[in-house]
C-alpha cells in the first residue's frame, strides 16, 4: 500500500506540474492577445467617434424621419446577435453570455426570437438547445475583422429594411476592466436619434457651425451614406470589445488555474514527502530489528 501510494503520488505531482506549465503558458498567450485586442479597440475609436460626430452634424429631424433605418415597427420578429468566443477555457465567460441571451428571450416570450451567433461556442450552445439560429460567423479567432464586420452589418441592415426583422439587438461582453466584463444587450436597429447625439450639450455650437458648412452633395445624401458606415463601425467596435473581454476572461481564469495548480502541487508534494519519509523509517526499523535479532541469536 505504502509503496503503491508513493508511486501514484509521484505521478500526480508530475501531472499537476505539467498542467501548471500549460495553464501558465495559456495565461501568457492571453495576456499578449489582450494587449493586441486593446490596441485594436483603441485604434478603432477615433474613426467611430468622428463618424458619430459627422452624423450628429448632418442629422436634422427631417433627415432622420426620412430614413427607414429609424422607423420603429410594432412587429414582434426580433433578432439577437450573440457574440461569444470560438474557444473555451475562459471560465464562465461564454456561460454568462448564453444565460443573458436566454434571459433576454424569456423576458419577451411572445416575440419571435431568432439568433445570429458570432463565435463557435455560442453557435454550438444554441444549436444544441434547439434555438432558431439563422446564421453564424465562426473562426474570427478572438480578433475583430473589419471585412466580416462590414458584411455582418450589411446583412443586418438588409434584414431590417426587408422587414425580416423588426428589431435587431447585439449581445456582447462589455469590457469594464481586466477582471470584469459584463454581458450587455444593446439595440442595433432601428436606430434612435438619442443614440446618435452623444454630445447633446454641444448642440448649439454644432448648430452655429452647421450654417457655415458646405455639405456635398446634400445633407440627406451624406446622412444616408454615413449610416451604413456607422452600423459597420459599431459592429467592428463590438467585435473588438468582445475580443478584449474574451482574452481578459481567459487570462484571469488561467491565472486562477495556475494558482490552484501551485496549491495542489504543494499539498501533494507534502503528502509525497511524508509518505517517503514513512517508508524510509519503516525500512530502517526493519533493518535495525533484523540486526538485533541476529545479535541475540
Amino acid at each position, binding site marked *: 500500500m505504502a509503496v503503491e501510494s508513493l508511486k501514484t503520488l509521484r505521478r500526480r505531482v508530475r501531472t499537476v506540474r505539467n498542467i501548471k506549465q500549460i495553464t501558465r503558458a495559456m495565461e501568457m498567450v492571453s495576456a499578449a492577445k489582450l494587449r493586441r485586442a486593446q490596441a485594436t479597440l483603441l485604434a478603432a475609436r*477615433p*474613426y467611430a467617434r468622428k463618424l458619430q460626430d459627422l452624423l450628429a452634424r448632418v442629422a436634422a429631424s427631417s433627415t432622420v424621419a426620412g430614413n427607414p433605418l429609424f422607423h420603429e415597427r410594432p412587429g414582434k420578429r426580433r433578432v439577437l446577435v450573440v457574440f461569444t468566443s470560438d474557444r473555451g477555457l475562459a471560465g464562465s465567460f461564454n456561460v454568462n453570455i448564453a444565460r443573458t441571451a436566454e434571459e433576454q428571450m424569456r423576458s419577451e416570450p411572445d416575440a419571435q426570437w431568432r439568433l445570429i451567433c458570432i463565435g463557435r461556442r455560442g453557435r454550438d450552445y444554441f444549436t444544441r438547445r434547439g434555438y432558431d439560429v439563422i446564421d453564424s460567423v465562426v473562426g474570427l479567432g478572438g480578433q475583430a475583422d*473589419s471585412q466580416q464586420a462590414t458584411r455582418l452589418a450589411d446583412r443586418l441592415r438588409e434584414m431590417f429594411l426587408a422587414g425580416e426583422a423588426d428589431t435587431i439587438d447585439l449581445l456582447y461582453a462589455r469590457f469594464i476592466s481586466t477582471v470584469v466584463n459584463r454581458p450587455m444587450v444593446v439595440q442595433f436597429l432601428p436606430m434612435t436619434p438619442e443614440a446618435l447625439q452623444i454630445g447633446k450639450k454641444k448642440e448649439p455650437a454644432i448648430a452655429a457651425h452647421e450654417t457655415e458648412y458646405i455639405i*456635398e*452633395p446634400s445633407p440627406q*445624401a*451624406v446622412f444616408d*451614406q454615413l449610416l451604413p458606415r456607422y452600423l*459597420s463601425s459599431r459592429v467592428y467596435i463590438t467585435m473588438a470589445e468582445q475580443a478584449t473581454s474574451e482574452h481578459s476572461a481567459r487570462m484571469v481564469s488561467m491565472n486562477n488555474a495556475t494558482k490552484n495548480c501551485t496549491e495542489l502541487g504543494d499539498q501533494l508534494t507534502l503528502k509525497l514527502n511524508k509518505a517517503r519519509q514513512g517508508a524510509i523509517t519503516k525500512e530502517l526499523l526493519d533493518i535495525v530489528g533484523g540486526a538485533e535479532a541476529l545479535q541475540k541469536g
Partner: protein
Amino acid sequence: MADFKLQVYTQEKKIYDDDVTSIVVPGLQGYFGVLAHHAPLLAALGQGKLTVRKGAEEHVYEIAGGFLEVRDNIATMLVDKLREAA
C-alpha cells in the same frame, strides 16, 4: 504655399497624419481639390483616386468611398479602404 493638416482614418485605425499642400478627392459629383484655409466642408466621397501633394511630392492612393471634413485648416478623411495606386 501654405500647408494644412490631413488625417486619414479607416474603420481599423489612423493611417495618415501629416501636413500637406493640397489634396484632390473623388467627390460624388466629380473630383475636387482642397487647399489650405478652405471653408468648412463636409462631403461624401465615391470610389476613385486620392491625390495628396506635399510640397513637390505627389502621392496617389485609391479609395473605395468615404467622407471628407474640412474645418479649421484640418482635413479629416474617413475612408473605406485605402491603398497606394499602382
